[in-house]
Every structure is written in C-alpha cells, then in structure tokens.
C-alpha cells in the first residue's frame, strides 16, 4: 500500500515537473515577442498587429517598449522576435551602421514618407505660404505674430528647428516657442477653431495629421532631413521558428502614411483597443494581409 502511494506521488510529481518544464517552451512557441518604442505611432501599430496576430493567426503577442538601441541588439541576439520601428536610412543611422543585413529578417518597409516637419493648416493659402522661405513675407509674419510653435526643448525636432532659426534669413525676427507636444496640439486646435494662421513643428506619422487637415512646408535647405521608411525587423531565424502564415502576414503588412496618421490619431483618443476597431473598419485590408492573393482574386 505504501509502495503504491509512493508510486502515485512520484508519478504526480513527475507529471507536475514535466508540465512546468513544458509550459514555457510551448508559451514561447505560441508567443510573438514584439518591441515597440514608446512613441504614439509605434504603440498604435503594435496594438493593431497584436490584435490581428492574436485573433487571425492564433498567436499570443507580448509587447515591450525598449529604446531603439536595446531593440536592435535584442532582435540581433534573438531575444526579441520583432522590432517595429527601424527608421531608415538616417534617423537610426548609428544602429544601422552597427548591424549587418544578415543579422535580421527584414520584412521591408511597413510605411514610408515618415519625416520631421514644419506644418500649417491646409486653409492657409498655398500661394502665400508653401515654403519656409515664404515666412520672410511681411504679411505672413504678421499673420503668424512672428511665432513658430514648437514642442519640448531638447527634442530632436526642436534642436533642428533651433538651427533652422539661425540658418534661414527668412526666419529673422521669429521666435521658436518651447512647450510640449500637448501644448503644441492645443495651440493648433485653437488656431484651427478660430481660422488663424499657425506654424507648428512636428513629424509624421503623428496623430495631429489624423485630426487636422495640415500641409507641410517645403524646406529647401533639407535641414529637416529626407523622407524615411520604417521597417519591421525580425530575428534572423524568424521564418524557421514561426509558421509561414505569420511571416507572410508580416511581409504583406504595409500602410500608406495617411492611414498610419489616422491609426495614430485613433490610438491617441482610445488607446488599447485601437487595433480591434481599426481592423473592424478596414476588413478588406486585413483580409489581404492575412490571405494574400486569395483575398483579391
């Protein structure tokens, strides 16, 4: 009797140990570890990706928010499955130069036309203000009260904008206002409600482009840089470890910048749950991402 009880206990203990050993392996196999920088647009895309991968492809998604440097290293070392915000070719050039093409499974651009910007509401007549150089016109300067509305001091766009204030003669006599992202958006909203002129510093994708009809000013000296493309980087053995339905979905996952702006704006309003709502509103796009050519023909 004692032997029998001991055997039962041993079997139970073995089963328990085995189940503990097995659980993490299985969980890892069914979980996509995604790194999304804690920027509004990145979080919005992560939320969408998480929703689709979970509901359509049957994988769990764990989203963490590493900074760019940590994310590149983690994906290259295989500690992270996917990084959503590889800005190429300039913004993250330091990291891009450090890693080789074969260190990653690059799923290609997820969206393009990302850039640092100076923008005005679209109702500001284009024939009067379409370029930073137009800011020299006295009537334009008067309409703007000689102000450029910026964000937090120290932000990359503010450092560049500071340099622009020195480099462009057209900006002589203007003041770059420091504040915060929220304050800039509040000023923009207020100006638009009152049909007033305003120039704001920013970047796209950004929720303000989803909320308001804006136009970017041309910047002839290219101090704001060229357009960037945002790639999704997977770990190098991604395709060996995940079924092809997942990698094919990621290869097809591509959005025009306008939709990224809208998604970001939606995320700014409702946060978590944005992905589910967006997917419900755009079933045909999700269908193509999941089913590929079968969804088209």
């Amino acid at each position, binding site marked *: 009797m004692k032997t029998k009880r001991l055997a039962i206990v041993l079997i139970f203990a073995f089963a328990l140990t085995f189940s503990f050993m097995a659980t993490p392996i299985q969980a890892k196999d069914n979980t996509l570890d995604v790194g999304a920088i804690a920027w509004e647009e990145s979080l919005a895309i992560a939320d969408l990706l998480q929703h689709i991968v979970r509901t359509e492809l049957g994988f769990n998604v764990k989203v963490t928010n590493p900074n760019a440097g940590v994310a590149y290293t983690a994906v290259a070392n295989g500690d992270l499955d996917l990084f959503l915000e*590889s800005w*190429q*070719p300039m913004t993250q*050039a330091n*990291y*891009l*130069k*450090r*890693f*080789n*093409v*074969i*260190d*990653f*499974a*690059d*799923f*290609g*651009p997820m969206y*393009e*036309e990302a850039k640092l910007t100076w923008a005005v509401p679209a109702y500001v007549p284009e024939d009067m203000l379409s370029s930073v150089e137009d800011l020299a016109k006295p009537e334009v300067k008067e309409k703007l009260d000689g102000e450029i509305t910026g964000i937090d001091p120290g932000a990359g766009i503010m450092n560049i904008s500071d340099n622009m204030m020195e480099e462009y003669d057209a900006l002589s006599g203007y003041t770059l206002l420091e504040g915060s992202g929220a304050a800039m958006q509040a000023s923009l909203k207020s100006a638009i409600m009152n049909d007033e002129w305003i120039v704001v510093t920013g970047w796209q994708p950004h929720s303000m482009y989803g909320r308001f009809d804006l136009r970017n000013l041309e910047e002839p000296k290219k101090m704001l840089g*060229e*357009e*960037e*493309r945002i*790639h999704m980087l997977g770990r*190098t*053995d991604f*395709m*060996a470890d995940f079924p*092809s339905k997942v*990698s*094919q979905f990621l*290869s*097809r996952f*591509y*959005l*025009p910048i306008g*939709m990224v702006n809208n998604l970001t704006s939606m995320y700014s309003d409702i946060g978590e749950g944005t992905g589910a709502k967006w997917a419900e509103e*755009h079933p*045909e*796009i999700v*269908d*193509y991402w999941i089913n*590929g*050519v079968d969804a*088209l*023909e």
Partner: protein
Amino acid sequence: MMYSAKPLAQFVIAFLAFVILLTSTVSFVNVAAAEEKIDLYIAPKTEYLPIGELLSYLLDSRFDLEVNEKIQYLDIGLRKIANGKGDLFIGLKLPPAREVSWNYSLYQLCDLGPIYEDVISGLATPAYVPEEKLSSPEDLAGSNIKARLHDELIVYESEEKLLEEMKKLTRRVEGLGDYKLVELGEMVANSELNRATRNNEWLITTLKRPSIPFSLYDMRFIEELTEGQSVHLFGRRTLVEKYSSRVTQFLSRFYLPIELINELIRLHDEDKRSAARKFVDEHPALVDYWVKGVAVL
C-alpha cells in the same frame, strides 16, 4: 532680285529656328529620360529572371521608367547597389545557406523585404500518392513502398547539395540503404516526372521550390532537406530620394506567394517574351494592388 532673296532668307531663318527647336526638344527629352531610368540587376538563376522581367515590365508600363536590366552575380550586384552604382537587385536568399563573402550593414542597402518566401528543397512525391501511406522518409523503408518505387529515388543531377543530403538521409534512416539514387539531368528528370504522373505511378524525387514541376504537377514534400528561405528585393540606400513615392511604394508592395512564382517560372519557360505580360493579364487584381495600394481593396 532683292524681293526674291527675302523669301529665301525667311525660309533659311525659319529652317534654322526649326532645327534649333528640334535640337533643344531632343536634348530636353534626353535629360528627362536620364532622370527616369532605373538599373535593375538580376542574379543568373532560373527563378530570378522571370521575376526580374515582370518587375521590369511593370516599371516600364506602369511608371514610365526606362529599365536597364542586367544579369549580375550576387557579389557584384550587391556591391553595385551598396555603392550606389545600381538601383535594384534581385537574387539574395535569406538567411544565407552558407557563410557569405560580403558584409553590408543595414545602412548601406535598402532591404525592401521578401518578394517571396517558403523557398525549400526536399524530397517530394506527387500528391496522388496517399499521404497515409507515404508521408515521411521512414515510410520509404516499407517493402510495399519500395516495390511501388522500384527501389529508386530520383535526384536532380544539377543539385549537388541535394545529392549529399540524400546520401546522408539514406544512411540516417534505417532501411533506405537498398535504394538506388538515380541521378538525372533536369530535362530527363522532368520528363520522368511527367511520365509517372500521367500514369499515376509512384515516384520520389528531390525537388526545389519554386520550380517548374511545382507549377505543372500537384506535388508535396515528404521531407525538407534545407531550411526555408525568402528572396528579398534590395535597393540602393537612397532609393526613396531618387524615385517618386509611387515607385518605391510599389516596390514595397511587390510580393508574391510561392505558387505564383512557380506559375511565373513556367510561363517564362514556355515563352520568355510574353511571360510577364501573360502573368499581368492573368492577375489584374494583384497587379492593381501593387501599383495603387489599398485604394483598390
């Protein structure tokens, strides 16, 4: 005489003006054309050429780009793209199957992502061979199976690496040592496959995907002898600066399932000149998506 000379002078002036106008028009056209050229390098492999020609056809017919298509070996093609001496390169499989002799950072190239995935070589059989009877190399050891296969396994002679893998497999799996590895040239192997499928005969052969047999016959793998790879489209780092966003976005969306790659290779084998046009005619919805994006969904 004076009167008769006047019309002649007028004619000469008009003629000269016409020549000057014509010359300036021609030189203007040349300048415009120079800005709208694209260099496309393609690695010399059966599966890359049809894709290169499809891409070339679309860049020309849908984007008015003059495509300079050239065959280039991998090392040279990538080097030219990295040095900015070329614009696009097709022919790099990732992750690489062996150590590579080149070393490019993410900064030097623009990886536009996979244009197709699921590239695999393995041991294949026609789909009509019942899966419950033959689905793994271990099943080949059965005496009934051996008899159905006449103790022969076909190996495509051009695939040296596959022959090695097959030899390893016959040593590793018990009972496969009696099989004769029949090496056949590509044309003979294809015709043997054709004969067997017409007569519903059982057959096992090494096969790579994509390939023409995968398009002609319904085949399935019973063993994968290589790791899955994807073929990427690479561009110069400054692709986005050099070409309009219509072009770069098209390149980002250019993605095919492996079945359509098989089909494209078959069309190219049937008639090299008309393959791209036929493919475009047969898949208008997919092409429309590549060219116009989500607007067509």
